[in-house]
């Protein structure tokens, strides 16, 4: 995931940015993880959608979130489904993060050996620049002990 892996990063799938998702990626580029919140009922949701799934209204805004969560589960991917991962990057880790605010987010884990990963591990967001437009949120073990 880090930018020092020369050419392989460029061939990894990149998220298309559109009107709906642009604020998410703009935030990541500035080191801020934000998701949509309903201004009527305060529900947060992810992935982005055009209206609040509870109120069905489009009165919502992007709000920064804590960046804290837990590992709901994680896998090591061995199968070469996508181009872009160099041979020595396999197997790579994918984690499903349960954000403190409620929604889930797929990501990867950094600064931790796979042998130390466990479900319910406390994690916090960090950012990895891919290119000028895209910075991906990734998660590392929580450093703060009283944050949650």
């Amino acid at each position: 995931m880090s930018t020092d892996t020369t050419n392989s990063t460029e061939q990894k799938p990149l998220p298309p940015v559109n009107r709906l998702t642009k604020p998410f990626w703009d935030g990541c580029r500035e080191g801020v993880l934000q998701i949509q919140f309903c201004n009527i009922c305060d529900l947060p949701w992810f992935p982005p959608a055009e209206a609040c799934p509870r109120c069905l209204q489009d009165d919502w805004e992007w709000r920064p979130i804590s960046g804290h969560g837990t590992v709901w589960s994680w896998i090591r991917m061995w199968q070469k489904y996508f181009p872009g991962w160099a041979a020595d990057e396999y197997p790579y880790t994918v984690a499903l993060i349960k954000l403190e605010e409620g929604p889930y987010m797929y990501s990867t884990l950094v600064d931790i050996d796979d042998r130390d990963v466990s479900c319910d591990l406390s994690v916090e967001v960090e950012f990895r620049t891919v290119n000028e437009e895209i910075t991906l949120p990734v998660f590392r073990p929580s450093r703060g002990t009283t944050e949650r």
Partner: protein
Amino acid sequence: MTQASRTELRNLQDKTAIVGVGTTQFGAIYRDLDPERSAYELGLIAFREALQDAGLKRSEVDGVIVSRLPHYGRMCEMIGLRHPRFVNVLPGEGRQSGIALQYAALAVANGMADVVACIYGNNGRSSGARYGGEDRGTTPQAMFEAPYGMTSPGAVTAMMFRRHQYRYGTTTEPLGHLAISNRANAALNPNAVMQRPITMDDYLGARYIAEPLSLLDYCLINDGGVCFIVTSAERARDLNHTPVLLHATSQASDITPVYVADDFWHEPMSQIADDLFAVSEAQRDDLAFAQLYDNFTPTMLFTLEGMGFCEPGESGDWITPERISLHGELPLNTGGGHTSESYMQGWALHVEAVRQLRHECGERQVANAQYGLYACAAPLATGHILKRDDR
């Protein structure tokens, strides 16, 4: 849905039957890769066989449900069906096979059609389907999962299984028992793709795909077609075979943005179990077999727990080779399932249930099969109890 309205499911009880089934030769065409093989051709072969099996004339078919076939028009045109009065198209996902039977039964029971052919065609192997890495465009998967290399239904199931391991201490050994049992049943099924028996060493030594799941946890990727034909119970009694009645059926769901469910789909599956066993003459002990949707082996764990064969978290201990074998307390996936017979996304499991209830299964026949279960755990879940009509 309220409990009151769910009791109305009784209205469909024993009203309709599966009267004809057809499948292509799964094993033979697995070894004969053909990039030009069309899914429609496979659907046609299965339809032709099902029609003959039922002893129906084509002109009696007035309803068609297709799945994984992009267009009903092409299928109807190819099977010479110009004026059907009930037509529907379901996407090519495994959750839809049980739903196809439900729609067909609803149509027949309510007079929308007399005879509905449910047709499935899958040329996935010949056309190079990989079931991973296809995420494109502006789907949430392409935008928020693919950048991390997250892809494929198997990887999602692996996430759920890892969580199950963490929460309940489940090991991979019960998954091995399921894979081995499926293979042993397939060895007695001349139509199955994979017939060489496997051992626990084979299972534990298989290469990882999405760890903790490995190759032998995975469904096959193969070509095939399946058709089943549904008509009224009354009409069924005049046809070729002992009718197999749709005795009880239900659908429930847990639809979330990330596919996984924190309770391993216990809520929808237990809702289905409640629905089925509330109306069914047969309870769990009366079932001759269960055909459980096994896109990946852990799905069967979640189904056994959700359907109440054991408590949540206890499926790993509940599964023993004896219990799930053809002579056991609850034979599972008697034809070999998706991991060994054929990956027909639930469709071939339905056909196997029908053939078992007709007592046509030769060496793999379960003794005295009177009632059988089909269940599919997924965000969109289904279950049926099918009944041999001996009248």
